[in-house]
C-alpha cells in the first residue's frame, strides 16, 4: 500500500524531553524537595503471615518522629487499581493492615527531618506479632486445610467470602470443545510455566505529599494515572476531589509497576496529613522488590488440529499465584482468555482460570498483562503441532491466524472488535527472509558443543480497551488543545510518558492536525485539577486512545481558529487550510490557489485576542470504539552451550504492525527494549522465595535478582527491527499501539529457537543454565539408552 506522507508523523525528530534527560535536569518523584519536608520510612513485616498485636511508638515519638500505625488509618478497604467498574473491583487492603500477609508488607511508618533520623526512629518502634501459618504454593493454598489469608473481602460493595484462598475463578466456552477434540486428527497438550518476574523499573516507587491549608493535599507520585490516584485518595481519606491535586511527574520506567496507586502513596498521604507537613517516601530497592511482581503462570494448553494444520479446538487451564492481594486478577483472567482465543481461530474453545492467594508479594500487571505468558504457551504449542504434522511452523501460523475482517476478543469477553488492519503475513514473510529461515536446519543435523537454532514467535496486544459498548473496564481520554497568541500551541493531557515517547507522539499528532510546526507545539505540565479524566497510560493505549482525543481537540480548536481567520481574510472558513512553515516557525493559513489570501496562525490568534473574539481552544473527552491489535513477530537465533547449558541469543528480528508509526526511532527502541525483557522472561528472570521464611532468596539485592546487562545481551549489531506497512482506519492518522506488544512474543520465539537447536523443548521459563544442562544430560542418556 502507498503510505500517506505527513509533515511530522512518521518522521524521526529530536525528542523534546531529550535535553532535560541527558543533562540531568529531569525531576522525578524522588527528586522533589519541598520546604519543611519530612522523610518517611516504612516498617515492614518480617513474617509472611502475622497478626500485628501492638505497635509501641513512644520512643520514636520522643525522638521527634511522626508515627503512623493501623489505628491512625481509615479502615476502608481499597484496591489500588481503579480501572474496573466498581462492581468488578475486589477490595482487600487498608492503608496499613492489622494482619501482615507477606514478608515486606508495610505495617507502620514514621516521618522525621532526615532520612537517617527516620531510619533511627523506625528502629525504635516496638512491634508484637502473632505469627500465623502461611502458604506459598498455590496448589497447597487451595487445599481445604491450608491456612487462609482472608475470610472475606469486598467485591464492589458486597461481602465476598473467600474459600480455599481462591481469589476469583473464570470460565469461558465457545462451541463444543470435547466434540472439537474428537473431530481432530492430532491432539497436542503440554504444561507451561513462567516465573514471578520483578518489574525492575530503574526508579523505585516514590511519592511526595503536601497537606494543604484547605484540608486538601497535593501529590507528586510515581504513577501511570494521576486521576486514579486522586480518586482513591479522595475515597480513602474522605477529601473532596476538588481539594486533591495530583501532579504528573516523569517516571523512571514503569512496565506496569505504577499502573495502580502504589501503596506507598496512601501511606505517605496519611503521614503528611497527620504531620501537617510535606512528606517524601521513596522505597529502597529491597522494599520495591517486595512491592509487586509480574503474574507468574501455570498454563495447561491443549490444541486439536486437522491433518492440514487447521486448529479445531483449544483448551487452556491456568492457575495464577497472585500473592497476598487481589489487585486485578479478575480482568487478568479475562485478558488471558482473550489473548488465548485471539491469536488463532478455534471454532471450539474452553478457558478456565483460577487466581489464588498466597503469602507472597502481590502480583500486578507487567508489560503484556498475561500475554507474554499465554503467547509463550501458544507459540510453543504451535511449533509442536508443526513438528507433529511435519509442516513448516510459519505455514501453521499463516493457516490459522486471526486476521483482517475477523472478530477478536481483545482484553476479555466484553472487549470484542473487528480487525481492520493486519500486517501478520507481511511480518512473517519479511522476517523469514531477514533471519534466513530457509537455511534453518533440523536439530538432528547439528553436532558439537555449541548448537544454534532459529525460532519464530508471534503475538499481539490490543491498543487500549475501547469497544462499542462500555464493559467491565473503563477506557476514555481527555485532551485540551489551544492556540497561543504567538501562534504556538499547548496540548494538555493527563497521559504519562513511560519513556517510549507517548507525549512526543501527541505533539506530532497535534502539530499535524493544527498545521503548526512541531517546534511550536508543547505538552503542558498536567495535574488532576487542570485536566479531564484519562483512565491510565496502560494497555498500549497512549497513542491510539490518548492521541485520538488530542487529535479531536486539535481539530475543534483549529475550527475555531479558522473561523477567526475567515473574519480577517473574508473567506469561507471551510476553504482555508493550514501548512507548517518551519522557517517562519508558524502555521500559515491560506486559501488554495488565491495569492495574498494568507496569514499566520500567530497573527490570527493575536488579532482574536486584541479584538476580544476569544481563544481558539477545545477540550475533548473521547472513547475509542475499537481496540485494534498491534501484531508483533520475533525471529530469534540462539546458541546453546551444551557443556554449560547457557543459552545465548545471537540474532533477532523484531517487527510490529503498529499502523502508521508516529515516532519511528522511538518505536524501534520499544521493540528492542521489549525484546530484551522478553528474553529475560525466557532465560533469566524470576523471584524465588525461601519456603521457610517466606523471604525473597535474593535478599532484596538486584545482583541476585538479575536482569540482562549490556554484556550479557549480545544483541547489538545483530538486531533488526521493522514495521509492517499498514494503516488503522480508527487510529489517529492510522496509528495503533506498540508498547506492551513489544515483549509479548519473545519468550515463545526463544523456546522455539532452543527446541530447534537441541531437539528438546523447554516449557518452563526461565530456562536457566542448570536446568538446561540437567535436561540435556538426561536427554542424551535416554537417547543412548534407546
Amino acid at each position: 500500500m502507498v503510505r500517506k506522507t505527513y509533515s511530522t508523523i512518521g518522521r524521526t525528530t529530536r525528542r523534546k524531553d531529550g535535553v532535560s534527560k541527558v543533562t540531568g535536569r529531569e525531576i522525578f518523584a524522588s527528586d522533589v524537595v519541598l520546604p519543611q519536608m519530612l522523610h518517611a520510612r516504612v516498617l515492614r513485616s518480617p513474617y509472611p503471615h502475622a497478626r500485628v498485636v501492638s505497635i509501641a511508638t513512644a520512643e520514636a515519638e520522643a525522638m521527634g518522629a511522626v508515627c503512623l500505625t493501623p489505628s491512625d488509618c481509615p479502615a476502608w478497604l481499597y484496591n489500588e487499581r481503579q480501572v474496573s467498574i466498581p462492581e468488578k473491583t475486589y477490595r482487600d487492603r487498608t492503608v496499613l493492615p492489622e494482619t501482615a500477609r507477606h514478608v515486606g508488607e508495610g505495617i507502620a511508618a514514621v516521618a522525621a527531618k532526615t532520612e537517617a533520623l527516620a531510619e533511627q526512629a523506625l528502629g525504635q518502634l516496638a512491634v508484637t506479632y502473632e505469627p500465623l501459618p502461611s502458604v506459598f504454593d498455590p496448589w497447597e493454598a487451595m487445599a481445604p486445610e491450608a491456612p487462609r489469608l482472608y475470610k472475606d473481602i469486598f467485591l464492589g460493595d458486597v461481602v465476598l467470602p473467600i474459600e480455599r484462598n481462591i481469589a476469583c475463578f473464570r470460565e469461558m466456552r465457545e462451541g463444543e470443545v470435547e466434540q472439537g477434540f474428537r473431530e481432530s486428527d492430532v491432539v497436542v497438550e503440554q504444561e507451561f510455566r513462567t516465573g514471578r518476574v520483578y518489574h525492575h523499573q530503574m526508579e523505585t516507587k516514590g511519592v511526595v505529599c503536601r497537606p494543604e491549608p484547605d484540608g486538601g493535599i497535593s501529590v507528586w507520585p510515581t504513577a501511570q494515572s494521576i486521576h486514579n490516584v486522586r480518586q482513591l485518595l479522595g475515597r480513602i481519606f474522605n477529601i473532596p476531589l476538588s481539594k486533591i491535586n495530583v501532579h504528573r511527574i516523569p517516571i523512571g520506567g514503569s512496565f506496569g509497576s505504577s499502573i495502580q496507586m502504589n501503596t506507598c502513596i496512601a501511606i505517605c498521604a496519611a503521614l503528611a496529613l497527620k504531620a501537617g507537613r510535606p512528606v517524601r517516601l521513596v522505597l529502597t530497592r529491597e522494599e520495591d522488590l517486595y512491592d509487586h511482581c509480574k503474574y507468574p503462570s501455570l498454563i495447561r494448553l491443549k490444541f486439536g488440529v486437522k491433518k492440514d494444520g487447521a486448529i479445531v479446538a483449544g483448551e487452556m487451564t491456568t492457575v495464577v499465584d497472585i500473592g497476598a492481594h487481589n489487585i486485578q486478577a479478575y480482568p487478568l483472567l479475562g485478558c488471558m482468555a482473550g489473548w488465548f482465543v485471539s491469536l488463532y481461530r478455534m471454532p471450539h474453545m474452553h478457558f478456565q482460570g483460577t487466581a489464588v492467594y498466597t503469602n507472597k508479594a502481590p502480583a500486578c500487571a507487567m508489560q503484556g498483562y498475561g500475554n507474554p505468558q499465554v503467547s509463550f504457551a501458544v507459540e510453543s504449542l504451535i511449533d509442536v503441532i508443526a513438528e507433529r504434522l511435519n509442516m513448516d511452523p510459519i505455514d501453521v501460523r499463516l493457516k490459522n491466524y486471526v486476521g483482517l475482517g475477523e472478530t477478536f476478543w481483545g482484553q476479555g469477553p466484553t472487549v470484542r472488535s473487528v480487525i481492520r488492519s493486519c500486517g501478520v503475513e507481511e511480518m512473517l514473510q519479511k522476517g523469514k527472509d531477514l533471519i534466513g529461515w530457509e537455511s534453518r536446519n533440523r536439530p538432528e543435523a547439528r553436532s558439537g558443543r555449541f548448537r544454534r537454532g532459529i525460532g519464530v514467535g508471534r503475538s499481539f496486544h490490543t491498543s487500549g480497551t475501547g469497544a462499542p459498548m462500555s464493559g467491565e473496564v473503563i477506557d476514555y481520554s481527555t485532551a485540551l488543545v489551544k492556540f497561543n497568541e504567538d501562534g504556538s500551541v499547548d496540548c494538555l493531557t493527563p497521559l504519562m510518558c513511560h519513556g517510549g515517547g507517548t507525549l512526543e507522539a501527541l505533539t506530532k499528532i497535534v502539530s499535524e492536525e493544527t498545521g503548526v510546526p512541531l517546534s511550536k507545539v508543547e505538552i503542558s505540565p498536567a495535574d488532576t485539577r487542570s485536566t479531564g479524566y484519562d483512565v491510565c497510560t496502560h494497555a498500549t493505549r497512549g497513542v491510539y486512545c490518548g492521541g485520538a482525543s488530542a487529535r479531536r481537540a486539535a481539530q475543534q480548536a483549529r475550527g475555531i481558529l479558522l473561523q477567526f481567520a475567515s473574519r480577517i481574510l473574508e473567506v469561507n472558513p471551510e476553504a482555508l487550510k493550514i501548512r507548517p512553515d518551519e522557517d517562519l516557525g508558524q502555521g500559515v493559513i491560506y486559501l488554495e490557489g488565491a495569492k495574498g489570501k494568507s496569514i499566520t496562525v500567530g497573527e490570527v490568534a493575536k488579532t482574536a485576542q486584541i479584538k476580544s473574539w476569544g481563544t481558539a481552544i477545545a477540550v475533548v473527552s473521547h472513547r475509542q470504539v475499537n481496540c485494534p491489535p498491534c501484531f508483533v513477530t520475533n525471529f530469534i537465533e540462539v546458541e546453546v552451550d551444551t557443556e554449560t547449558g547457557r543459552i545465548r541469543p545471537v540474532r533477532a528480528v523484531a517487527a510490529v504492525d503498529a499502523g502508521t508509526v508516529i515516532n519511528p526511532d522511538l518505536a524501534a527502541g520499544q521493540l528492542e527494549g521489549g525484546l530484551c525483557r522478553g528474553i529475560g522472561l525466557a532465560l533469566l528472570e524470576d523471584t524465588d522465595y525461601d519456603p521457610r521464611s517466606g523471604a525473597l532468596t535474593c535478599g532484596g539485592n538486584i545482583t541476585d535478582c538479575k536482569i540482562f546487562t549490556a554484556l550479557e545481551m549480545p544483541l547489538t549489531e545483530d538486531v533488526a527491527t521493522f514495521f509492517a506497512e499498514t494503516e488503522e482506519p480508527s487510529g489517529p492518522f492510522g496509528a495503533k499501539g506498540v508498547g506492551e506488544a513489544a515483549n509479548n512474543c519473545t519468550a515463545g520465539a526463544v523456546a522455539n529457537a532452543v527446541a530447534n537447536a537441541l531437539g528438546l523443548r523447554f516449557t518452563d521459563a526461565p530456562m536457566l543454565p542448570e536446568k538446561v544442562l540437567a535436561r540435556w544430560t538426561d536427554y542424551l542418556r535416554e537417547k543412548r539408552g534407546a
Partner: protein
Amino acid sequence: MTTYPVRFLLNGTPVEVDVAAQDTLLETLRNKLWATEVKNGCGKGDCGCCAVLLDGRAVNSCLTLAVQANGKEVVTVKGLGNEDDPHPLQESFIRKGAIQCGFCTAGMIVSAKSLLDENPRPSPDEIREAVSGNLCRCTGYKKIIEAISDAAPKCSPSD
C-alpha cells in the same frame, strides 16, 4: 553525631559540606548539594544509576563515602554539558534514541565518558564491557551502545 567538613570541586565549583563518617557521596550529593541528577537506583552498587566521575574515573557514588571525595574533583552528568553546549555523548544519546525513561541516563553517560577518556575508539564489545555495571530496563542497550560509538570520534578528553 560527629561530622567532618569535606571540601571538593563539584562540576568545577568548590563546595564544602559537613558529613558523618558513614555518609555516602550519593546521599551527600543528592540531599545536601541538591545534585539530584545523580540517581539512586539501588544504593548497593548494583545498578550504576549513581555513577559520577571522581578525579576523572567513574565510581558508584553509593559505594563511595563522602569523606573519600575530600580534596578531589567530582563531575556529574550536569558537569559534562548543558542545553546550550551539550557534550557529544549527550547529543548522541538524544539523536540515537538512547534514552527512554532517562533514569539510567546520567550514570550511563558518566560511565561512557570515563571509557572514552581511557579508550577514545572503543569497539562495541569494549563499550558493552564498560557499561555492564549500568543497568537499563528500557532500551535493551542497543541504542546506548550505538550512541557511545557515534559520540567517540566527536569527543576529546577536554570535553
